C-alpha cells in the first residue's frame, strides 16, 4: 500500500502519492480481474447477446442497417456498461475493499479516479472486442479513428457519472436494479451526442456536422468529471 | 395546417385538458392531506408510547429507589441490632474476661 515517501519536491507527501493512489486502485482492479475474469466475460457475452437480439428485433436490409449501427452499438455499450459498473462496486463493497481504501491516508478523489479508470478500462476492452465482431457480422468497417474517438469520449462521460452513481446504488437496498434507473436519465446527453457523432463518422458526414456533437460530449465529460469527483466523498463517507 | 373559414371545434380537448389539470391538482392535495393525517396520528401514538415508556422507566426507577431505601433502612436496623447484640456480646465477653483469660 502507499507509504509516505519523502520526495524531492517540497510539496506535502499527499500530493505525489495521489497519482500513486489512483494507480494502486487501478492496478488492484486490473489484477483482480485478470485472475478471475468474471467481469469481462460477463460484459462480453452480454454484449454479444444484445447484438444478437438487435439483429432479430430490427430485421434490417443492408441499407437501413447502416443508419442504426451507431444506435445499436451505443445501446449495447450502455447496457453492458451498467453490468460492469454494478459488479465493480459490488465487489468493492462485498469484499470490504471499499472500507480498506477509505482507511488509507489518501484523498477520496483518488479512489474515485482509480475506480473510473478501471471501469473505463473494462468498458473499453469490451468495446474493442465488440467492434470487430460487429464489423464481421455486418460486413462494415468500424475501425475509423473518428468513431474510436467518439467511443472514448462517450465511455469517459458514461463511466464518470456511472462510477459515482454505482457507489450510491451499491449502498441501497435495491442495489443492482437501481443503477440503470439512476444512470440512464442523467447520461442521456452522452448517448444522444455519441450516437449522432458516431453516425456522422460512419456515414462520412462533413466534420462541421459532427463538431457540435463532439463539443457536447467534451462539455459533458468535463462538467461531470468535475461534479462527480467533488461529490464522491459525500457518497463514501461513513 | 390549412386555414379554415370557421375555427375548428377543439373544445373537447380543452375540457379534457382542464379536467386533467384539476384532477391531478386535487389528487396531489388529497395525498398531502392523507399523508399529513397519517403523520399526525403516528405522532400522537408515538408520543403516547414515549410518555408511557418514560413513565415506566420513572416508575421502575422509583421502585428501585424504594427498594434501595428499604434495603438501607433494613440494613441499618440490622446493623443497629447487630451492633446492640454485638455490644451485648462484647459486654458479656468483657464481663467473662474479667473472670477468665481473654482470647484475641
Amino acid at each position, binding site marked *: 500500500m502507499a507509504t509516505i515517501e519523502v520526495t524531492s519536491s517540497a510539496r506535502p507527501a499527499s500530493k505525489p502519492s495521489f497519482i500513486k493512489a489512483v494507480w494502486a486502485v487501478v492496478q488492484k482492479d486490473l489484477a483482480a480481474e485478470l485472475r478471475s475474469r468474471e467481469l469481462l466475460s460477463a460484459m462480453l457475452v452480454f454484449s454479444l447477446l444484445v447484438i444478437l437480439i438487435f439483429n432479430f428485433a430490427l430485421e434490417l436490409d443492408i441499407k437501413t442497417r447502416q443508419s442504426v449501427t451507431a444506435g445499436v452499438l451505443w445501446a449495447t455499450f450502455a447496457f453492458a456498461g451498467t453490468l460492469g459498473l454494478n459488479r465493480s462496486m459490488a465487489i468493492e463493497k462485498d469484499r470490504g475493499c471499499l472500507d480498506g481504501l477509505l482507511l488509507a491516508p489518501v484523498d477520496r478523489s483518488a479512489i474515485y479516479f482509480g475506480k473510473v479508470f478501471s471501469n473505463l478500462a473494462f468498458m473499453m476492452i469490451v468495446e474493442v472486442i465488440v467492434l470487430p465482431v460487429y464489423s464481421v457480422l455486418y460486413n462494415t468497417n468500424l475501425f475509423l479513428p473518428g468513431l474510436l474517438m467518439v467511443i472514448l469520449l462517450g465511455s469517459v462521460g458514461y463511466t464518470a457519472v456511472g462510477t459515482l452513481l454505482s457507489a450510491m446504488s451499491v449502498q441501497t437496498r435495491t442495489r443492482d436494479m*437501481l443503477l440503470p434507473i439512476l444512470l440512464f*436519465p442523467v447520461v442521456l*446527453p452522452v448517448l444522444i451526442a455519441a450516437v449522432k457523432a458516431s453516425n456522422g463518422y460512419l456515414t462520412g458526414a462533413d466534420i462541421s456536422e459532427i463538431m457540435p456533437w463532439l463539443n457536447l460530449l467534451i*462539455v459533458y465529460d468535463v462538467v461531470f468529471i468535475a461534479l*462527480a469527483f467533488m*461529490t464522491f466523498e459525500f*457518497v463514501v463517507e461513513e | 395546417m390549412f386555414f379554415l373559414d370557421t375555427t375548428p371545434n377543439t373544445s373537447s380537448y*380543452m375540457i379534457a*385538458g382542464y379536467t386533467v389539470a384539476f384532477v391531478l391538482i386535487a389528487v396531489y392535495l388529497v395525498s398531502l392531506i392523507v399523508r399529513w393525517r397519517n*403523520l399526525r396520528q403516528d405522532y400522537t401514538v408515538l408520543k403516547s408510547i414515549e410518555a408511557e415508556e418514560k413513565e415506566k422507566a420513572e416508575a421502575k426507577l422509583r421502585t428501585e429507589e424504594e427498594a434501595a431505601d428499604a434495603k438501607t433502612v433494613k440494613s441499618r436496623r440490622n446493623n443497629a441490632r447487630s451492633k446492640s447484640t454485638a455490644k451485648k456480646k462484647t459486654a458479656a465477653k468483657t464481663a467473662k474476661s474479667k473472670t477468665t483469660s481473654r482470647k484475641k
Partner: protein
Amino acid sequence: MQKKPAALITLDILAVVLLGIATYLALVYAPTEAVMGQVQRVFYFHVANAWVALLGFVAAGVAGVVYLVTKDRRWDIIEVAAVEISLVFFLIAIILGSIWARPIWNTWWTWDPRLTTAAVTELIYIAYFMLREGIEDPERRARFGAVYTLIGSASAPITFFAIRLFRTIHPVVIGSGDPGAEGTFAMTSKMLVAFLFALFAFSVIFIDLFWNRIRMGWLNDKVEQLKLKVAR
C-alpha cells in the same frame, strides 16, 4: 406540533381564489384563438404549470448544494418538497402539452426539446425517490439525495440543448415539420392578461404548496426520530 400559522391559512385561501380567477380568465375572458380553437386555452395552464415545475427544479438543485455544504436537515426537507411539487407540476404540464398537440399536429407526442426534457426530468425525479426509498439511515438518505439532485440538475439542461441540437439538424417529419413551431400564435392583450395572471396565480400556488409540504417534511422528520427512539 404547532398550529398552522395564520399566514399560511391566508395563503391557502388566496391560492384557491387565484386559481379560480385564473381559470375564469383562461376559459371565459380570453378570446378564442382563430386557428387552433378552444384547445389553445390549455396553453395558459400548460405554461404556468411548466413555470412552477421549473421553479421547483431550481429550488431542488440549490437546496441540494446548500445541504451538502451545511449538512443542515432543513435543506433536505426543502429539497424533497421542491422535487415532489416539481414532479406533480411537470406531469400536468406534459399532459397538457400532449393534449394541446393532439388536435393541432395530429400526434400525442412531439419530440419537442422542452417536452422531452420535462419527461426526462420526471424520470430523474422518480429515480430520486426510488433512491431515497432504498436507504434506511436518514442522514445518508439526505446526502445521497443531494448528490443526485446536483447531478440531475446539471444533466437536464444539457439534455435540453442536446435535443434541441438534434431537432435543428434533423427536423422531425411530423405535423407541421417545423421544429421551431410550438403552436405559435399572436397574443392579443386579453390573452396576455390571462397568460400573465395564470403565471402569477400558479406562482402563489407554488409557494403555498411548498410551505405546506415543508411543514409536512418537518413533521415527518419528527415522527421518524420518534420511531427510532421508541423502537428500542
